[in-house]
């Protein structure tokens, strides 16, 4: 039982730290609010799309900056514009800010500056990806545990009131952490 509380606390603390460190901003919170029983994995799905998009764009920019015959800065600006847009939509604040910094160097057609920015961008992206994947793992673990507990309580007609209270507490904690209660039939 204590393990469950610890897991929930870990989820809430980890989630808060992501905001404190500026890795995600309020837009991320907005996305979490859009999850419900009809769309319980919305944030994870959008995040996965974002990771794919980001990797592709970073790769394209790296290739563009390597071109010996001349860097196509217009192409780089388009990539940055796309990435800035999607990072803003998902609430990936530090990635977004890295894009803004990058934009001024690409506008000035400064290749060295762009290379440094790209490195910074890659770093921010890796950080975001690791943190979000950890967050999702803890979230999924909590929900699985919740489902197991509910099944246990329902299957056990001689169950003490204590497990029901525990289930209720877990439910409250999931909601407080911004998650949605999985439907167990």
């Amino acid at each position, binding site marked *: 039982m204590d393990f469950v509380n610890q897991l929930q606390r870990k989820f809430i603390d980890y989630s808060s730290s992501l905001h404190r460190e500026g890795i995600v901003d309020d837009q991320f919170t907005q996305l979490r609010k859009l999850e419900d029983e009809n769309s319980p994995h919305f944030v994870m799905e*959008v995040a996965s799309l974002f990771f794919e998009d980001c990797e592709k764009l970073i790769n394209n920019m790296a290739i563009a900056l390597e071109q010996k015959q001349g860097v196509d800065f217009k192409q780089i600006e388009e990539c940055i514009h796309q990435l800035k847009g999607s990072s803003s939509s998902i609430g990936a604040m530090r990635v977004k800010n890295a894009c803004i910094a990058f934009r001024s160097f690409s506008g000035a057609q400064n290749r060295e500056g762009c290379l440094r920015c790209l490195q910074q961008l890659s770093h921010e992206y890796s950080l975001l990806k690791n943190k979000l994947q950890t967050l999702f793992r803890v979230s999924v673990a909590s929900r699985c545990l919740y489902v197991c507990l509910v099944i246990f309580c329902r299957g056990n007609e001689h169950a003490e009131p204590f497990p029901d209270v525990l289930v209720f507490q877990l439910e409250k904690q999931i909601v407080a952490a911004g998650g949605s209660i999985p439907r167990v039939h």
Partner: protein
Amino acid sequence: MATQTQFHVLAVDDSLIDRKLIERLLKTSSYQVTAVDSGSKALEFLGLNGENEDEERNSSVESVSAADEDHQVGVNLIITDYCMPGMTGYDLLRKIKQSSSFKDIPVVIMSSENIPSRINRCLEDGAEEFFLKPVKLSDVNKLRPHLMKGITTKNEMQSNTNKRKGSEEIQSPDRTRPRYNELEVV
């Protein structure tokens, strides 16, 4: 059984992530959604086809066109990104406002750039709202009055025999108030 008609919103955005987001926002608000990735796909869906065939080759098919012989597709609002390759959201706005069948459909523009001249031009040329990205639920809540206006206008035209005098607000439950016959107002 309650006869609640769902509003149908056509969302246009070349970014997959933004399409997913706007779709979720609209569905959360109980709207039916069709999401397409270009202006030309949007026109195709509405049945205003025949132009910009080159762009269609580059766009991926995300939704199936609902416009067949009956080219009146039930779309109650169009929400579109401004910056798109080929046809911009502004171009799309103009084409819709120039169309006799669709000029009365409210159009909303979204953009990641806060450029006052851009915003003003869109609003002057018929856009109902201009949302700055990232779009939030509070933005989507602003759509309802524009959607309801479409119903009100229709009903007022049907029951326009009353002539009101003065500036008093008439609250009596008679023909002066718009009737939502087909729609259950939540």
